[in-house]
């Protein structure tokens, strides 16, 4: 079966490493350093470069993890992917509704910082859970 738009399995480890490093940097900037760049251009200042590394690195890492093939990528795995994607989209919609209703001010800003990764994070967690259930239920 053709599995287009999926990356080789080894990209998953690379993605995890990139995500962990970038996410730690991101949390450091957001919660400890608490300093933000005014410009958006990558060479504007060292702070802007750090911000961009944290934002793009986290997204790139998550995308590599989410869209890497499993060791055996068959049609059941693709079905589990589709199932996880639909659930992740639904859950992220619910989260946006809830956060818009109940979060205001600074906390909402922090939520927005993380919100850009919510769909991918939910997809990865739900897909891993689907795979865990699939392997556990079909071991004999």
């Amino acid at each position, binding site marked *: 079966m053709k599995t287009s738009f999926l990356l080789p399995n080894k990209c998953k480890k690379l993605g995890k490493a990139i995500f962990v490093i970038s996410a730690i940097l991101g949390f450091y900037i957001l919660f400890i350093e608490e300093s933000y760049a005014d410009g958006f251009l990558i060479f504007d200042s060292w702070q802007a470069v750090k911000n961009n590394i944290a934002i793009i690195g986290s997204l790139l890492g998550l995308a590599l993890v989410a869209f890497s093939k499993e060791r055996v990528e*068959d*049609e*059941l*795995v693709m079905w589990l992917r589709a199932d996880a994607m639909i659930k992740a989209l639904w859950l992220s919609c619910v989260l946006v509704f809830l956060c818009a209703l109940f979060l205001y001010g600074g906390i909402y800003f922090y939520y927005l910082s993380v919100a850009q990764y919510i769909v991918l994070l939910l997809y990865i967690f739900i897909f891993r859970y689907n795979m865990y259930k699939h392997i556990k239920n079909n071991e004999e």
Partner: protein
Amino acid sequence: MKNNIRVERAIHGISQQQLADSVGVSRQTINAIEKGRFVPSTVLAMKIARYFNKNVEMVFALEEGD
């Protein structure tokens, strides 16, 4: 959709892993199909039937309500 893959495997004396390797899926997927938890695509169903030298409808059959 029901199937008799388990019976065919027993007749041919092959394991789930051997069948999985031959048709290019994981062993867990073959197990899920055998247990009726997953309905394979037409391509995979035909590959499995061809492996046993049978027609698809001799390996897979529709159930009432399908």
